[in-house]
């Protein structure tokens, strides 16, 4: 993986979007050959592949007029920081790259967002992330001096950074704002890979002080499931489709968090599947939303109606991604959700009621999203330019890995 990391450094000097994208595909093919690892190495490999894939999708989704060198450099910086987050071994370097990955997103938000509110959103994101991750830095030093950790204060000092990044319900306020203000490619990578840094971080920390985290995380497991339940309800009252998708990613990540914190093998496997599946799925949803937004110039769920009559291919992609979002069978989210539910039920069997409600609610909002945006008939729009081949390819490349991995789940099993 270090060779790919170094190879990305060489991509920086290339100023051509096509060649950068091409070389990233080359790196992916190269990484596929090292898929014989197991354990933590496999996890790293999967996440690096995910971030390479999604950054490539990002490169594809940028409209021609924005394809400038500086955006490309920010993308490569982002990719570099993501790869180094997943690659590095030590906690201090993990922290360093974890913090570093915020800055390219912040620059994308400031430079390519289109509303004045992006300032507030960017500061929200930056200050939330940095404020909660600086205590982690102190605790990393304590761990390096091998001072015994105990008590809930040090637990929260360690884990808050990841809870904000995932985000857990209650610490999520930066996420919807950042998503609303970010351009399409920004929210694609934000939902696709950035949220997974939190889950990966909890996994990484639990390799060293897993018993300590398991001992203190009892309430968090329940709280996270309840938070997911509440936020799947919150999804129904959103009028902005981007907010709805952002809240849906909070819901998905909350069940990932509770599954991870149970520290069962089932939970870890399930959370990996869910994270990869959610990475592709939410990225694809934001992408298809961006393509819809380019045509209708509105994200309101009231205005976007009746696409099934006007632009059926758009409706098809909305259907495919919404169905993946509600964990419809050929999708990776299904297995992930099942595993996570099982791990939480095994942890505490009286959670089954909340989990059942969670399953129903979290699938219903995807149905709601699809039926309210695609069905009925439109009173505003009459015709649109159909999806071009490139746009369809972009969505196809989101959908295929999402639905093909279920044929062999052993590649996500570590």
């Amino acid at each position, binding site marked *: 993986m270090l060779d790919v990391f170094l190879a990305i450094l060489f991509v920086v000097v290339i100023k051509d979007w096509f060649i950068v994208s091409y070389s990233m595909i080359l790196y992916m093919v190269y990484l596929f050959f090292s898929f014989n690892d197991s354990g933590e190495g496999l996890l790293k490999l999967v996440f690096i592949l995910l971030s390479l894939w999604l950054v490539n999708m990002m490169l594809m989704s940028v409209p021609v007029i924005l394809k400038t060198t500086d955006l490309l450099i920010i993308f490569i910086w982002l990719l570099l920081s993501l790869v180094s987050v997943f690659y590095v071994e030590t906690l201090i370097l993990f922290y360093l790259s974890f913090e570093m990955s915020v800055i390219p997103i912040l620059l994308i938000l400031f430079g390519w967002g289109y509303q004045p509110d992006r300032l507030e959103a960017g500061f929200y994101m930056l*200050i939330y992330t940095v404020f909660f991750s600086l205590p982690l830095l102190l605790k990393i030093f304590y761990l390096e001096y091998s001072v015994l950790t105990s008590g809930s204060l040090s637990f929260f000092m360690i884990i808050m950074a990841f809870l904000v990044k995932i985000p857990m319900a209650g610490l999520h306020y930066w996420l919807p704002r950042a998503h609303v203000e970010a351009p399409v490619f920004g929210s694609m990578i934000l939902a696709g890979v950035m949220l997974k840094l939190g889950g990966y971080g909890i996994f990484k920390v639990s390799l060293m002080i897993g018993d300590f985290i398991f001992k203190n995380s009892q309430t968090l497991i329940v709280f996270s499931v309840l938070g997911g339940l509440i936020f799947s309800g919150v999804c129904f009252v959103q009028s902005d489709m981007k907010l709805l998708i952002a809240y849906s990613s909070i819901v998905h990540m909350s069940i990932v968090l509770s599954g991870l914190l149970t520290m069962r093998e089932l939970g870890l496997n399930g959370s990996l599947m869910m994270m990869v599946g959610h990475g592709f799925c939410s990225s694809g949803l934001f992408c298809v939303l961006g393509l819809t937004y380019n045509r209708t110039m509105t994200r309101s769920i009231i205005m976007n109606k009746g696409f099934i009559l006007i632009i059926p291919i758009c409706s098809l992609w909305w259907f495919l991604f919404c169905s993946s979002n509600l964990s419809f069978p050929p999708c990776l989210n299904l297995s992930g959700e099942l595993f996570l539910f099982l791990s939480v039920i095994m942890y505490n069997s009286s959670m089954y009621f909340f989990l059942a409600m969670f399953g129903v609610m979290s699938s219903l909002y995807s149905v709601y999203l699809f039926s309210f945006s695609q069905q009925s008939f439109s009173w505003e729009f009459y015709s649109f330019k159909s999806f071009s081949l490139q746009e369809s390819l972009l969505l196809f490349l989101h959908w295929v890995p999402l639905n093909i991995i279920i044929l062999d789940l052993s590649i996500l099993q570590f």
Partner: protein
Amino acid sequence: MKNYYLIIMPLYLLSIMFSLSSNCWMSIWIGMEMNLLTFIFIILEKKTFNSNESCMKYFLIQSVGSLIFLFSVGISVQMTYVYETFSINALVPPLALMLKSGIAPLHMWTPDVSMKLSPLSLFLFISLQKLIPMFIMFSSWTILMKWVIPVNMVIGSMGGITQASINKMLIFSSINNSGWMMLSLTESTFLFILFFIIYFLMNCILLTFIWIEKIKWISQIKSQNFPNKILITSVMMSLSGLPPFMGFIPKWIILKKIILFLPLVSLISIIMSIFTMFFYLKITINMLLYSSLIKKWTMIFSKAPMSLFFLLNLTSSLLFIFLT
């Protein structure tokens, strides 16, 4: 005046060296007086609006500080104050030095004076002028200084948030950074030198920019030039201590060194660094958001030293990745 800097600057640097290398209190005092006089010449070199007034204020406060220092050192028989940390005799000299260098509890005069300073003298005021008092305070009053550090951190970061003038903001940032300097001096002189060099470098870049663009208020910071934009943004992120940049390295090392014996101070320092980050980034946002919808510039790097600094700033802490 033709040979102004040829005479004044060497004298100024000599006074710092004289004071730091002397072995009795009296010659330290002499060095500080030399420092004061040459610094007043540096302030007076450029006639700005009311620069005489700020010069006068500066002179009065500095001479009061020096006199207190001289008096308290003179009446004391003991040369070092190691064993009587909180006696009144021992408290006066460090307080006089804190007054002279504008360290936090006695910092009230600095924002006023700084408003009328030229960029060069402001730069010297927030960097080199801190050297002598800092070293002398840590020669004898280390235990007292541990109480001053959190005060500096808090006042520097809280005061900087509301400032609209770049000079006052830099003064408050220097108060916060002098807290970090003292924190590094509790560990070792080497750490102080590391921190100080990086702080010096970043402020040098920032104040060169301010000097060239003739900036006085934060809202004036906007640049149509892309290299300047990335340079100043990266310098501000570096000052705020965000990880991939150079400013993170000394803070990382300091925190790692002091965490075991000053846990509460390190917690305060990192919490306060959020506020400093807020106001450092606040001055870049005008620059970051100041552009038309479609970018008109292309990527041209500026002159070699600047881009070299930029690369150093960006990649220095990334080099540690090969240690993993």
